[in-house]
């Protein structure tokens, strides 16, 4: 990469005895949407908060817009915008006051009225923060992240806990920012979010990046095979399942069996015959197109939501 806007090299962060981030490295180019995908506790938030200048690092190197967040936190804060997990605003702060207040802290600022309009908060401009719905609060958080017209945006789990409709609204906002060529770092544990929004994804688990690439590249790792997930009446040997027609991989995940097969139909027929021969029964069967979840299962043997 020629001139990455963000660079993270061998980042390590410890909380007492616990090593939350264990040698994470990646870089993000200008105008790219980069996703950190992983389960809760994988070290995504710690990584992002170090880049935002909110946490100190134990070792490694981080550069944001050519600045070191450890040495120049305020300069970095002037160049970035962010939404955080587990944050709030005072109950008695009005929507338009929040935007204007935060805009007032920066050297460069956008027109607050324009932001309210863009994020559909015009009607709520006089509402107190505690009168907003979850979706409105998140839209306000996104609007506030843009008050200083930042070069880089960090969205930490932007849709966590939101209902599907609101989630789609947030996706549309992020897609619009993507079209404007904003550099965005997004943390998520939603596969759909990472696949839909990110140009590149780093899959993070136990503080390490275990795979990195475009969603397409990552899915190709698992041979672009369809996932067939079955629940059986009695346990079955993994070896036997791997020997079924067309099955390239079989694993037991959460008392279900996940089979990867490039052509699912012959594999399912083969599975049913095998079960009948052994007197076993099929309780449920799900077929899904290959996703980043399969990559995660392949690499860790666990589901992302575990």
């Amino acid at each position, binding site marked *: 990469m020629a001139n990455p806007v963000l660079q993270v090299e061998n980042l390590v962060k410890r909380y007492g005895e616990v090593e939350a981030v264990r040698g994470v490295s990646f870089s993000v180019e200008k105008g790219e949407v980069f996703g950190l995908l992983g389960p809760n506790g994988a070290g995504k938030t710690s990584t992002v908060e170090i880049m*935002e200048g*909110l946490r100190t690092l134990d070792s490694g190197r981080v550069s944001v817009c050519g600045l070191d967040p450890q040495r120049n*936190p*305020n300069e970095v*804060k*002037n160049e970035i915008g*962010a939404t*955080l997990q*587990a*944050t*709030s*605003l*005072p109950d*008695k*702060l009005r929507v338009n*006051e929040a935007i204007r*207040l*935060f805009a*007032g*802290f*920066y050297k460069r600022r956008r027109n607050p009225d324009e932001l309210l309009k863009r994020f559909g908060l015009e009607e709520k401009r006089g509402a107190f923060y505690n009168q907003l719905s979850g979706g409105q609060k998140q839209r306000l958080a996104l609007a*506030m992240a843009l008050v200083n017209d930042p070069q880089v945006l960090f969205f930490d789990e932007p849709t966590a806990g939101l209902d599907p409709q609101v989630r789609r609204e947030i996706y549309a906002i992020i897609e619009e920012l993507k079209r404007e060529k904003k550099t965005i770092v997004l943390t998520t544990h939603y596969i759909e979010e990472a696949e839909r929004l990110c140009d590149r994804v780093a899959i993070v688990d136990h503080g390490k990046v275990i795979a990195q690439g475009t969603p397409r590249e990552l899915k190709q790792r698992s041979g672009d095979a369809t996932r067939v997930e079955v629940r059986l009446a009695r346990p079955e040997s993994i070896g036997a399942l791997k020997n079924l027609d067309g099955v390239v991989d079989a694993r037991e995940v959460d008392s279900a069996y996940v089979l990867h097969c490039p052509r699912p139909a012959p594999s399912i027929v083969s599975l049913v015959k095998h079960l009948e021969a052994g007197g076993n029964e099929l309780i449920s069967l799900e077929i899904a197109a290959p996703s980043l979840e399969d990559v995660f299962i392949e690499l860790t043997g666990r589901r992302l939501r575990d």
Partner: protein
Amino acid sequence: MKNIWTLAAIRIRMTLRNKAFLFFSLIMPMSFFFLYSSVFARGIPADVAKRMGPVISLTVMGTFWGLSATIVMWREQGILRRFRLAPLSAGDMLASSILANFALIVPTVFLELLLARVVYHVPTLGNLLSVCALSIVGIVSFGALGLIVASVTNTMQETQVINQILWFALLFFSGATFPLYWLPRAVQGVALFLPATYLVLGLQRAMVDASTLWDLRIELTSLVSWAVLAFFVASQLFRWEPEAKLPRNAKLWALATIFPFLILGIWENKYGTLRQTSAAMELSKPAAAQQSTTQH
């Protein structure tokens, strides 16, 4: 400096929208004012003047409570984390708290002085410059006490317990409720280590004896040094995150802010005349306070 003004302005606006503020910053101080003036001083103007020191002190001292509670609540709710994303310093947050607190309390102090003149016909407010200076310094220094409490407590529950203990001590051992002269000698000894004692007596001297700024230089200097020290320590111990751990020596640093009054307390206990000043104040002029003292 711009950030401090911006933050203070919005905090004032938000506080004024809070009904609890109305109670703690207006109704409660006014209740103290009328209780002291009508009951303790029996509405006698000269005695009301004497009681204005404790009344203003109670108004000023109570500010530490709301200030510490707001900071801890904001930390617990993750509000401070959001502010931390902006290019703001701990000093900006703390100074804006003090400034907002100051702007919100000053009108109550002036209202008390005005009511003393208008309702109870207090003939003179003594040395008004000294009264104002002590009130201003008092608001800032007890605000700084609130910052210290917020810096060493982790939860609202813990903050409220510490606040109650402090409030109890300030209320009963400083001369704000019972004049210093009335307290047993051992308790007087302890009271001489409390910043509130100097505020109460300083205000009384300014109002009753028209003491000048020079006469009150010890009270003013020690309150100012306490405020500066407390602000500095609070800014060093400031935590934006609810999960941020308190440094090992934090509580010792917090206690160390009382240093100016430790020195003053030792000196007053050994060589000072504050006990006599309090006695003279209570025994001066034939009035309700004197009658109470005689009965006591």
